[in-house]
């Protein structure tokens, strides 16, 4: 990877991470600061301790704040394991949209 490619890649991920962390704090009411929300920490059960109602909330927020519609209940779970898997999902959606246009 070219160094500028790495930089752009990291910047893109950081930007999405910031949005997701904001959602966790404002909509899911996590009483944490942005830097405490580690990108690989488990979202549900352990980790941030989110539950099924939070999962619903997160799906809604992914749609209206990040433009990612998670429709399929099966795919949902593997994409909602950690902040990093959510970032993967957003990037994949953006890429799919770019190709489609």
């Amino acid at each position, binding site marked *: 990877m070219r160094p500028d490619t790495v930089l752009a890649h990291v910047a893109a*991920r950081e930007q999405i991470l910031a949005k997701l962390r904001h959602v966790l704090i404002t909509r899911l009411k996590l009483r944490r600061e942005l830097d405490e929300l580690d990108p690989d920490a488990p979202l549900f059960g352990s980790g941030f301790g989110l539950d099924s109602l939070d999962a619903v909330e997160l799906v809604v927020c992914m749609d209206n704040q990040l433009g990612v519609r998670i429709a399929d209940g*099966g795919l949902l779970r593997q994409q909602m394991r950690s902040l990093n898997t959510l970032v993967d999902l957003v990037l994949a959606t953006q890429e799919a949209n770019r190709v489609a246009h």
Partner: protein
Amino acid sequence: MSLTDDVLAVRTAVTLADGAHLTCVRVAGRHALDALDRISPRELFARPGQMVHTLLVDDSARPFADLYIACDEDDYLLLAEGVTGAQLADHVRRHAGDLEVTTEELATTHAFLTLNGPYAWELLAAVASPDVIGLPYLGFFHEGRFTCFRAGRTGEYGYDLMIPHPDVAAIRAAIVATGAQFDLREIGLDAIDLCSFENGFFNVRRDAQPGLTPVELQLQWRVSYHRTYPGSAAVVARRATATRRSIMLAAREPIDRDAAVELAGEGGGVAGGTPVGSIVHAARSPVRDEWLALAVVDRDLAHPGIAFTVGGIAAHSTSSPAINNRSAYVDPQRHSYVTRANDKFPPLVRP
């Protein structure tokens, strides 16, 4: 009998292992809550029957115990690994000062069995109590003579049973007998640790290396910056100064744990630059059929999707968990091991 088969059994069926790596201490007395309030890095938001998952750190913020604090009516049960029962009890009492608190090392009178797998709940419901299906993650209950903690460390349904010594043989026999219809496989700690590693979970017996704190290890969720506890000052200080963070790497070839991590150059070769990180642990993942490595790298590079080299071997960073746990799809209200062939589950490896 292979480690790969053991791991695949954890991922698709039910497994049974001895839990000699676990210990448990009962903390009781009028000031039990106050005593734990002094040592817990995390708020004790646990109601009876619930656990809080945290860890204990030393003065340099290095974790030395993986700890579940379970609220057992007026008492607390500390389920831990990485320390002995005696060390844990001593830690509680040392910081309790003149508080009225007693500690009891239950590992001297009890043994542990641990059940893991997407259908572990079903076997346990058949052997012990149908209420197992309603037990949420980080819940526990007493069933007859034993205590069942749901604190899985493999990414699958996982239950640790704490059983008084005289009853262990009978309960184990009951599990094995009923387990036949679940293709129960008896496995060792090595398989559990490998599953835990595939899921990117912290292993205090392996990953608690000097210089690594909850900040580098992405374990900040297990601590609170609003509390004072032994080691808290060092954790707070590291939060402000940490330059590295953990990330999981995947590679087609074996990774040398002692090799330096570098950014890959254009075309995938070694860029020839300075090392950007080091390896904490590496192992072959049976589920992914490739090598996984837990690395700590410069924070600016600790993101998935970046090409690295480790001692000349090409590797790329990946999100955790690097696999797809079937337990995330298996619903005790819908599924059953017997009828699993009719159920469509996603593949174990994330695309």
